[in-house]
Structure formats: structure tokens, C-alpha cells
């Protein structure tokens, strides 16, 4: 488990239309991927993403619905503007923009989330661990004291 990159996966609970994809995410997600289900990508506050980054996440995946498909009509529009800028801001202070991937899912996408996560994991493995801003890693996982 420890050599695999730690990934924080923010999943909008509406975006996986196929029940088997949702079932895979809910119960057969690889151990190194930490699932955070949110009612909508619009609910994802930059604080959540920063909390994940400071907690030692080597990569962050944010999956939501395509425009005009959002259950709440415009949650994804707000999220994209804010979180894309936050990603560029984190990159500005050293957390590589490549470590954040947005997955905007369509109605008929099937099994895409598994492919995206696998592809993302290999991309992150190439980048290696992201220690620079990992300041809140729990002690039980070998986090540093202050």
C-alpha cells in the first residue's frame, strides 16, 4: 500500500449514472484512493482540497457532471471556475497542476471512472510523492510533528 500514490477522490454522488460504476466506487475502490462523496462538485470548498493536500494526498481527482447535466443545474459551473483556479493557485506555490484531474462525466459514460483513476494513478506515480505541502499527515501514517 505504501508505495502506491495516495489519491483523494472527490466524487459528486450524481455523476455516475451506471449503478455498477457507483457500486465499484463504493465498495471496490483500491485502498490508496480515498473517497469523499459530495452532493455536488459545487459543494467542494477549496478548504477540502487543501485539507487533502496537507493530509498527504499525492493526487486529487474531482469527478462531476458535464454542463446542463448537473442535478442542481449549475453546481458544476461554479465548481469548475473555483477549483480550476485553486489548482492553478496551488501550482503557483508548488503543488503540481498535474496532480489534480477533473473528470466531467457524461450520461452514457460506462466504466470511464475506473480508466480515469487508473490512468491518473500512473501519471501520479511518475510524478512521485508530493511532500512539499503535506503538513497534516496523521501520526499513525508517520506524519511529522509540528
Amino acid at each position, binding site marked *: 500500500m505504501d508505495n502506491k500514490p495516495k489519491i483523494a477522490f472527490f466524487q459528486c454522488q450524481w455523476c455516475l449514472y451506471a449503478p455498477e460504476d457507483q457500486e465499484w466506487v463504493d465498495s471496490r475502490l483500491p485502498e490508496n484512493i480515498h473517497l469523499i462523496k459530495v452532493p455536488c462538485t459545487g459543494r467542494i470548498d477549496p478548504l477540502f482540497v487543501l485539507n487533502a493536500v496537507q493530509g498527504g494526498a499525492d493526487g486529487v481527482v474531482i469527478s462531476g457532471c458535464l454542463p446542463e447535466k448537473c442535478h442542481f443545474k449549475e453546481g458544476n459551473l461554479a465548481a469548475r471556475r473555483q477549483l480550476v483556479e485553486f489548482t492553478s493557485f496551488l501550482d503557483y506555490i508548488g503543488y503540481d497542476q498535474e496532480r489534480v484531474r477533473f473528470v466531467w462525466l457524461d450520461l452514457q459514460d460506462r466504466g470511464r471512472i475506473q480508466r480515469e483513476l487508473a490512468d491518473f494513478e500512473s501519471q501520479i506515480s511518475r510524478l512521485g510523492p508530493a511532500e512539499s505541502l503535506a503538513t497534516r499527515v496523521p501520526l499513525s501514517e508517520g506524519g511529522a510533528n*509540528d
Partner: protein
Amino acid sequence: MKYILPKHELNALLERWSAEYAVLAPQKAGAYSEFLPFTAQSELCLEEPHNTRYPPKALFFPQSEAILKYKRNLGQLESIEAVPQKRVIFGIRPCDAKAVTLLDTVFAEGDNQDPFWLARRAETLLIGLGCNEPGATCFCTSTESGPFHTDGLDALLTDLGGEYLIELLSERAAGLFSGLESASSAQQENAQAVQTAAEQALPKAFELDGLKDKLDRVFDQDVWAQLSESCLGCGICTFLCPTCFCFDLVDEAQRDTRVRNWDTCMFRVYSLEASAHNPRPTRKERTRQRLMHKYSYWWEHAGKLGCTGCGRCVRYCPVGLDIRAMLRKASAYESEALHAN
């Protein structure tokens, strides 16, 4: 006992002390000076008439400190060990040293004494450096202190130009100055002259006698609203103050520690209750608490004034609130308003 130390031998002396003590001295840190561990390459910062920007209380009462460790298996909190360390703090100004003795009245007296404070105080020597020329924002002579006061110091240096005159003040610091040549009576008189000149160079900024009673009497008057009109409600005046000791206890869950952080009465959440009632809802009550605590309540707790006139709150307030002017206005208000009717 009084010794003489030529200035060019200072670094060598500090190095000698470093064999036995961890020596800290004010050194350049960007635009200001800070107490940093002394090393052979240290470039000491003693000319500045003013003290370090960050108060040396942090050397005894750190701003963030884990005081309890959570044992997950037992589900209980256990104390973190407070280990004394032999230290010498060189170049501390008299106002900051006196401030440390004021904090002793909180952390080192009465019941529930603080083990962390005591551990850091027990083996630490304070070697003071007097101020030949107090700055425009200093007012130690108005607060029962002074540019060459010795409260809390183990030794006091007076800058005579080419050398320092060292006045030994405590037995435990005697060893530090063994081998130094003792001061001639001429040098002692010179030091005395320098000290009195410095004392006189700093006129009183406000009248201390009767100030406490005046502040008590204007407690519920409108003067506090006028005084705190432009206050931003930030924490600079309290965090940089060498005598402020308020703290917060907070659990850092993922670090399994309970942490003690500095806190400040200038923040809204400091006195905000679970019922959402806040006895100090606006900056007026908070400014009043800051001034009353130092110039009235501390007197009732420990018979001492809670301010040593170091001037940090005056120098770094972003909106230029000057505690000297505030105290003058409060006592003027008391004599005009209350005696007028």
C-alpha cells in the same frame, strides 16, 4: 561585582558560554532582530535602541506548544515532559526582562504552577543590555521600569562606547564572568552617568499615580468607544506584548496532541459563549479589557503593573493607536467628565 568587557571580546565570551549553555542573542532577521542561537558566525544586533520585534516571552511561553499527548490505546491524555535546558539569553532589554518576572506572577506563583514555564525558567540566565538612548516609542520610565532596570536580570551590561560595564546581579551567573577584569571606579562613574542620562532622556508619557482608580471610574463611560474607534481588532498589540499571557487550549486530532496557543482578548471568538452571547461584542469592550487588565486588574492580582513600556504595541499598531495617548485621554476624560457634573 562589576566587570569590564571590551566589545571585541564579546563574541569570544559568548562562545565560551556556548560550551556549557545554549546561548541566544538578538541577531538580524530580515528588517528586524530576533533571538536566535548564537554561533561563531552570528552577527549580533545590539545597536538598535529597540528590542526584538517578536517578544522574548516566546522563549519561555512558546506561541504554539503541545502540552498533552493522546494515548489512543488508553483513550486518555498524558502530559508531555517539560525538560529544563541550560540557556543564556544575552542582550535582553530591561523592559522585556521585567516582563518575564511579571509573567512569573501568573505561571510560577500560587497554585497550579505551569511546569513548562518553570522548566524553561529554571536553568535560563538573563543577561540584560541597557538602553543608552530609549526610542521615541519607549515609555519604560512611565511604568515603574527604566532603561537600566534590573528586575529579572542575572547581569546588566552598560555600553560605554568601546567596552561594556557588566554589573553582576545574581550568584548563579557569577561563573559567566570569571576571568574578566573588574571595573575601575572611573568606569563605574561613567556607567552611572550614562544610566542617569538615559533615564532623564525619557520623560514620563503619562501620570501613573491614581491612573488605576481613574480607569476603574471610567469603566462604563463612552471614552472607550472613542479610544477604540479606529481599532482593527487584530492581535498585534497583544501577541507582540511581552506581558500578555492569555492562551487557548485546542486539540489537534490528527497529531494526537492538545496544543496551547497564544490567544488575545482583541478577537471576537475569545469571549464568545456557546449560547452566542458575547460579553465583549465590539472592539470597545476588548480595548477596555486590554488596558484595564494591564493598568488595573494586574495590580489587584499581583500588586504590580502589567506593562513595562517596551513600546511594541505603539510601533506596530497598523492604525497608529498609541497606548500612551489612550491612557492620557482616559485619565483626562475622567477628570473633566466625572468632576464636571
